[in-house]
């Protein structure tokens, strides 16, 4: 029990900062890697393959690498900014310092909703996987999805409530296992051997399979290429809880994006060589299906467990990131200050964690309650679009960051090379992915923009008066000229 837990009630309000419980600084680079890769890796197991339906086999591969470039820019920008401003909330704290409160409020909201929706989708998928598992084990009765989706969200929230170290150590183990299963599948199929089970030339070699809809199909595939990497930017959320954020965030994040590019390329290669593109473009669990085609029971079991672990790791990381963003906004009074509380014993943002549990459960069960499976894709689209809105802000924000604190003015643990090329590339690629998303989900895009516009109006009209304007500059940096 910490010393602060024994503080008696009724202590005066002039409590010094030193007496307040703070987030515990216990994380190492491996935890940052586990957080980033853990959230994303489920996208290798499912979801990315819809890019094949839009753009064919090669269209999906181009999307995989071009969107990989977009996320590499994001990770490099995050690494520099977060190592200078290591605060919970990540991009929210960056926006607060480089742009202003309204942008920060929107970014905080993007983060919270993107991760909460992704968590809800993961819980929904988890219940589907358990139903599949019970079927494979010979059960003729169908499992109800309700109890398992609810249990998954509550159990992971409990773990996050009790401490960040345990929850991200678990993420490291299950994410590592899930990544290893992809490698095992590659080895098990002897994917390097022309005489083995893969038929890459036969399945992708002609124009009808490779680029069936031409280059517009490739552009349309970009929105699903995001599945390979969506969420890696969440590593910035844990900066305040690192033992050394300037070391851990760049190391963990850059190792994470390298892991994901390898995993994405292997996944595409294995699936493109085993599954016909018409099937692959609509499959729910493509990697698992590739394992089933191998005829090896060991691979089937491993890939099923890998899918389960990837889904759990993603939901776990999402709870961590969504709660930090919500907590940070509460701490700065962008939301009621009640959410800015830190647990005196576990040193976690406990109220933010609990508040988001019913929200995630509601969105996880909505497709089941209304008996409309397409609502799951709406939930996921909401998450993707929220992430995309945030990416479009990061390029201009980083250019402003460099103007406020030029090279040499502050110590940097990581310096983005070739500035401003990555920021410009990120902005341009975000615009292309926006266009691709508009092609597929135009109505959803307009709806979500309207939602954030209304939220901004609410913030300016009703909430901004509570924000302590003189206390927004919390970074340990010199105030720039004219700030």
């Amino acid at each position, binding site marked *: 029990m910490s010393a*602060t837990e024994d*503080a008696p*009630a*009724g*202590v*005066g*309000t*002039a*409590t*010094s*900062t030193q*007496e*307040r*419980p703070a*987030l515990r600084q216990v994380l190492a680079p491996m935890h940052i890697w586990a957080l980033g890769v853990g959230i994303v890796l489920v996208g290798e197991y499912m979801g990315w393959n819809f890019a094949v339906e839009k753009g064919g086999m090669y269209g999906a591969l181009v999307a995989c690498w071009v969107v990989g470039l977009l996320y590499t820019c994001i990770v490099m920008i995050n690494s520099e900014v977060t190592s200078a401003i290591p605060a919970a909330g990540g991009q929210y704290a960056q926006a607060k310092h480089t*742009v*202003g*409160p*309204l942008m920060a409020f929107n970014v905080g909201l993007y983060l919270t909703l993107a991760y909460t929706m992704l968590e809800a989708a993961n819980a929904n998928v988890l219940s589907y996987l358990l139903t599949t598992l*019970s079927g494979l084990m010979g*059960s003729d*009765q*169908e*499992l109800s999805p309700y*109890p398992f989706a*609810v*249990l998954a969200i*509550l*159990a992971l*929230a*409990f773990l996050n*409530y009790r401490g960040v170290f345990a929850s991200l150590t678990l993420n490291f183990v299950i994410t590592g296992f899930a990544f290893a299963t992809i490698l095992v599948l590659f080895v098990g199929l002897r994917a390097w051997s022309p005489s083995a089970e893969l038929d890459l030339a036969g399945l992708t070699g002609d124009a009808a399979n490779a680029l069936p809809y031409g280059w517009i199909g490739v552009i349309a595939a970009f929105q699903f290429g995001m599945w390979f990497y969506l969420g890696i930017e969440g590593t910035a959320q844990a900066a305040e809880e690192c033992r050394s954020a300037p070391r851990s965030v760049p190391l963990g994040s850059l190792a994470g994006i390298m892991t994901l590019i390898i995993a994405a390329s292997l996944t595409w290669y294995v699936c493109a060589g085993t599954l016909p593109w018409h099937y692959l473009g609509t499959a729910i669990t493509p990697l698992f299906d590739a394992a089933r085609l191998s005829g090896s029971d060991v691979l089937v079991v491993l890939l099923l467990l890998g899918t389960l672990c990837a889904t759990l790791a993603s939901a776990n990381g999402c709870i961590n990131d969504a709660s930090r963003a919500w907590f940070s906004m509460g*701490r*700065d*009074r962008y939301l009621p*200050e*009640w959410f*800015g*509380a*830190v*647990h*005196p*014993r576990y040193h976690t943002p*406990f109220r933010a964690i*609990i508040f988001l*549990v019913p929200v995630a459960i509601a969105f996880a069960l909505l497709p089941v309650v209304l008996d409309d499976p397409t609502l799951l894709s709406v939930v996921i689209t909401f998450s993707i679009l929220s992430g995309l809105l945030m990416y479009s802000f990061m390029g201009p924000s980083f250019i402003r960051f460099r103007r406020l604190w030029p090279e040499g003015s502050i110590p940097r643990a990581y310096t983005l090379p070739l500035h401003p090329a990555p920021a410009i590339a990120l902005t341009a690629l975000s615009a292309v992915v926006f266009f691709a998303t508009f092609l597929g989900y135009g109505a959803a895009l307009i709806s979500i923009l309207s939602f954030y516009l209304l939220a901004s109006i609410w913030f300016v009209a009703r909430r901004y008066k509570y924000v*302590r*304007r*003189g*206390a*927004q*500059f919390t*970074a*340990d*940096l*010199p*105030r*720039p*000229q004219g*700030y």
Partner: protein
Amino acid sequence: MSSVAVVELVAWVLSALIAAWLLVDMVRVARTHDEATLVNAPDPLDGPPPAGPAGDATSARSA
């Protein structure tokens, strides 16, 4: 009762136990600690914020 029904019941019971523990602990913390000691917010009265060459505590832009 079938095995599927038993597994589902166990999941519901575990969910209820976890939810109850989380709520009880949250209420317990609120009752045993002063709110000012829990909220991890920067307070301008705590001390001067980091000052740069041209800055002061109240001139932060509030765009």
